[in-house]
């Protein structure tokens, strides 16, 4: 984790230092640089969909952080007298079979789903990223071992594998995080491997070798910072998939257990009511799920535009 903070520090340093202290004199024909904020504004102006994605992301973040203190009802409080009511001014998304307010439950569930996604992505980034970078940098047997592990994981239908892992390890949120991380491992390992591999013999890595850097230091100061942008894009894309996967596991009864508000369980509970006409019970959590996945996928494009140095000038 110390390595990671170093990487992130380099990132933020590069971003803040990219702002020239003063306008460049003309005789130095260096391309003028843009601040991150100005750059972000440009990206959004160029592609409004990216703006929408960032907006949705802000909403999700807000709901995840402040959700429980914002909602009008206790998400767990059942009130059988007002069960199965359609959307109304009092209950925006209606109520479920136990009379719980669906709007409150959908909002409160954001924190859990978001947390599962964030932690599983962080875990797979650390595991898959490190394994992939080492495989690409060292080659040889490290590469073979990492490659075969990735192949083995890819050989299973990924959702079935996740089911198996949760079933074997035990039904808990932690194990959902672990299962989601494991099924995404090949994706991260392969991207990191390919990126590290092309940079292994780059001029600046050779130069760093001549400067007396050890292999380990080369990896952390030369290679990892340079593959961070592509990994950031990968992480954003995986977030949506991780949410979907967590909800999917809950939907089939693994992982999060009722009555905890969680989008997958809520859809599962509401599914049986769709035939009898109470569509809102499954619809609104499903909509939230869809919006979140949609948002993270679009965000991936935006993040790519934001971190691609070629788009900076």
């Amino acid at each position, binding site marked *: 984790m110390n390595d990671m903070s170093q990487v992130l520090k*380099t*990132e933020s340093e*590069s971003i803040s*230092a*990219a702002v*020239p*202290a003063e306008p*460049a004199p003309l005789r*130095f*024909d*260096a*391309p*003028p*640089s*843009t601040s991150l904020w100005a750059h972000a504004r*440009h990206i959004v102006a160029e592609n409004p969909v990216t703006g929408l994605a960032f907006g949705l992301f802000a909403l999700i973040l807000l709901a995840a952080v402040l959700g429980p203190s914002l909602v009008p009802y206790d998400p767990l409080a059942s009130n059988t007298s007002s069960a199965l009511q359609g959307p109304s001014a009092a209950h925006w998304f209606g109520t479920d079979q136990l009379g719980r307010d669906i709007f409150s439950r959908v909002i409160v569930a954001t924190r859990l789903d978001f947390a599962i996604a964030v932690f599983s992505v962080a875990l797979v980034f650390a595991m898959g990223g490190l394994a992939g970078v080492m495989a690409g940098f060292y080659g040889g047997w490290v590469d073979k071992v990492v490659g075969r592990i990735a192949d083995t994981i890819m050989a299973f239908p990924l959702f079935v594998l996740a089911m198996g892992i949760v079933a074997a390890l035990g039904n808990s949120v932690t194990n959902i995080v672990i299962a989601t991380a494991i099924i995404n491992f090949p994706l991260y390992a392969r991207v990191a491997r390919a990126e590290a591999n092309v940079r292994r013999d*780059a*001029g*600046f890595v*050779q*130069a*760093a*070798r*001549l*400067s*007396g*850097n*050890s*292999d380990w*230091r080369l990896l952390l*100061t*030369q290679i990892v*910072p*340079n593959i961070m942008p592509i990994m950031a894009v990968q992480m954003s894309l995986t977030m949506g998939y991780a949410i979907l996967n967590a909800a999917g596991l809950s939907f089939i009864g693994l992982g999060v257990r009722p009555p905890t508000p969680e989008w997958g369980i809520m859809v599962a509970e509401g599914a049986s009511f769709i035939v009898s006409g109470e569509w809102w019970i499954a619809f609104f959590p499903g909509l939230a799920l869809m919006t979140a996945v949609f948002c993270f996928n679009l965000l991936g494009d935006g993040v790519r535009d934001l971190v691609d*140095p070629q788009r*900076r*000038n």
Partner: protein
Amino acid sequence: MTAPPLLDIKNLTVEFATRRGAVQAVKSIDVSVAKGETVAIVGESGSGKSVTSYAVVRILDRAGRVAEGSISFSGMDLVTATERQMRDLRGREISMIFQNPRAALNPIRKVGKQIEDVLLEHVQATRATAREKAIEALTKVKIARPEERYDAYPFELSGGMCQRVVIALALACQPQLLIADEPTTGLDVTTQKAVMDLIVELTRERGMSTILITHDLGLAAAYCDKVVVMEKGKVVETASAADIFRNPQHPYTRKLMQATPRIGMSLADLLPDAPKGPPAQAAAPRPAPSPDAEPLMRVENLVKEYPRPETGAFFAKLMGKAEEPKSAFRAVDSISFTVAKGETLGLVGESGCGKSTTSMMITRLIDPSGGKIIFDGTDIGAIPAKQFAASAHRRRIQMVFQDPTDSLNPRFTAERAIADPIMRMGTISGRDALRARCEELARLVGLPVELIDRFPHQLSGGQKARVGIARAIALDPDLVILDEPTAALDVSVQAVVLNLLEELKGRLGMSYLFVSHDLNVVRLLCDRVIVMKTGAIVEQGTAEQVLGNPQAEYTKELLTAIPHPPL
């Protein structure tokens, strides 16, 4: 001239829409190309020479547009022509050759088929005659055994061969105008000669017009009738090739010519403000290294072998039980030489001759397969490359890389890049002392101190080269390997960097191993020269001996291949 020119560019302005508003890449230029004429457009990077040609064939990217002016091609206005008309014109009437021949060919299609595609697209052949015509086209560009080469894939051909195929593609439909955009950059000097001779010959034969876009004034003058010099989007001079060398009018042309290394000039002559006549400090003879003194480095029978890939042993390899390969490929075949203290040794040869492998072994980035590298009394070849980073000799052997952009970490500032070797191996500690040393080094290499907080993408090519040099000399090394340090730079920047290197060597008492394919530059910088071919040394001696009176056949061939401008 009575006949109207084939291509007439009048008052052309090309604009690119950028985030900071429109930028004019080409500013109201006039260029005309008569039928059968060969015209060179010469300029340094960013002069707008390529953009001009892209405007002619209308392949500017989305952000670019012709803002003003007209381009007429045998009476037809190309600016207002429809895309359909242009498509018909491209390839049939106007063809283009690009810089990297390998990138211009489809890697998974046989070269013969690719020529057929063009012929069929422009209805120059039917399915029945296509093969025959494609082979004929290959024969025209002097590809030996064209029937066999028809079935070759681009990766099976050398760079020069690929460029011939590209030329065959371009000429397959007998165009009236050929645009060659740096057709020989990246090719060896002997290949360059062969390709250029071919282009000129085919142009004459067919009465075709050619536009040659190049940064090399010597090449332009040697092969073209007319030279157009461009600077920052403007045409500064148009004259016949002979006139432009004998009597250049514009100061920029003069500057460009002066910066181009030629026989019989000194390093200082390359700079624009060099005094006329023999300059005092350049005339001073270099202190000849005394022959009795122990050389700084002695290389003895150095060998590097690479195993040949085993094709049938896939499963054996998978199990980690690959057999010992029967015959290995010798990239470097038992070479021996010495580098004296304070000497510049030139290592010359074409691509694949083993000069880069040699320099990698000397810098101890790769391990030799055999032989000794005795550096100041120690056989450093015996220390494995993996452990050399921790060796006391590491800081004494440094390197300046070929591509200044590639050799700088995009996420390190110039200061961080220069400080890297000091932080790992230096004696200076403390943020302020380190900063002071970096500023000192920046001043030493002529990099403005206020620029050392910038990132590589905020620096120009010349500035990046200076950062690379500052990093290499940061620990006062004894031997610096210069791996084509100016190959990626414009000639005027090259002139400055070469002078800087020479000055630093004198001031810091280093030895240089200068790896290059450019004999004109080697002549200027080196005391002694080694010529390598296919892993072995074919000739070595002092620079005057080897380049003035070459003995080996191969050295002679290299020397004659350098384009000689008509003087």
